């Protein structure tokens, strides 16, 4: 059997390998090295073994941040997935409404993360923001700088505004791939609106919904920029997610050892999620 399809292909891959080595492998090695040592600067290192990992795993701070992350992702998914489906179902299937809707839907996705954060940070401010002022004028006591609940609501509304479009676009792609004959057959079979959704639209959207679910879960689990810009992790620690905690630890307190241990744990969790995502995607591909 012919061993290699085309040997030259390997040379093409070489630059990528070098790039990955510098951008990923070497920093990762360094982080691992840091995670098992203690340092007080001056390039002096002391062997600490697995102490930092134990510290992180036994600290409430880590578990609290992880819990916040999970709750945030759960809320995001619980809102964005059903909302995305509902919007996609109600989008026009033909005519000039289609491109208009698609462009409107795509707009939030085109705005950079930190800009989204800044927009909402200003939007929600009680002194000059449109939203903050309006709510205050309606007599609602809203202040995301002081009230943890308001901070959460702001972050969730912002994420929903920013990312529901992605779910909508994915679902829409699934819906338009359903041949007309299915709807006609369902009419003839006397199916109700719910039955059409349950037995025709949902099965056809299953694959894209899975993509949407996993994408949104991973993205929201790794969220950093928006809470950093809007709340900076506060008030208190109420919006301190793992990513924000990590930065506080490493930059704010210069605890490089624990920060390294935390980033490895965080990295492993995300690696696991990515692997699940990749596996689910490729196997559902194979099943058609």
């Amino acid at each position, binding site marked *: *059997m012919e*061993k290699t399809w085309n040997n030259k292909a390997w040379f093409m891959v070489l630059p990528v390998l070098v790039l990955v080595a510098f951008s990923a492998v*070497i920093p990762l*090695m*360094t982080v*691992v*090295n*840091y995670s*098992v*040592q203690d*340092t007080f600067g001056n*390039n002096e*290192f002391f*062997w600490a*073994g*697995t*102490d930092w*990992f*134990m510290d992180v*795993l*036994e600290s409430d701070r880590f578990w609290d941040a992880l819990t916040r992350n999970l709750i945030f992702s759960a809320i995001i998914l619980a809102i964005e997935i059903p909302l995305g489906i509902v919007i996609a179902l109600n989008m026009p299937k033909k005519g000039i409404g289609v491109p208009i809707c698609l462009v409107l839907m795509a707009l939030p996705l085109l705005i950079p993360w930190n800009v989204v954060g800044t927009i909402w940070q200003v939007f929600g401010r009680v002194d000059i923001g449109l939203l903050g002022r309006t709510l205050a004028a309606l007599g609602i006591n809203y202040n995301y700088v002081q009230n943890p609940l308001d901070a959460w609501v702001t972050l969730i509304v912002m994420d929903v505004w920013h990312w529901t479009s992605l779910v909508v676009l994915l679902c829409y792609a699934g819906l338009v791939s359903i041949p007309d004959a299915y709807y006609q057959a369902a009419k003839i079979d006397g199916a109700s609106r719910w039955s059409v959704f349950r037995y025709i639209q949902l099965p056809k959207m299953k694959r894209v919904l899975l993509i949407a679910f996993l994408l949104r879960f991973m993205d929201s689990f790794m969220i950093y920029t928006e809470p950093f810009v809007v709340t900076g992790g506060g008030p208190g620690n109420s919006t301190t997610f793992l990513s924000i905690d990590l930065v506080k630890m490493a930059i704010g307190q210069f605890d490089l050892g624990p920060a390294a241990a935390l980033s490895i*744990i965080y990295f*492993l969790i995300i*690696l*696991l999620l990515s*692997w699940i995502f990749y*596996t689910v995607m*490729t*196997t559902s591909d*194979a099943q058609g």
Partner: protein
Amino acid sequence: MDFSWMAWTLPTALFFLAIALMLVGMGVWEYVSPGGNPRVGVLRFETTRGDRLFVSLLGSAFIHLAWLGLVGANLWWALALSVIYAIAVFRYV
């Protein structure tokens, strides 16, 4: 070149050396019997031996973390458990 900023220690160097050796080993294995021996195991999707190595390593990492968090610092037992887990993965996944 100066790698002192990377703060190498003997254990971490050995750790990465072990990983590198595994990858080289996989490469040799692939050369001797190409194709990666794909099959469908208990997870009900197709895996090659590369996938199985990845699942073993990732799983082992979580086994070690769980041991640290729940039991204590003596990781030799966690390592033994990981080896058993890896063998199981290579057999059944």
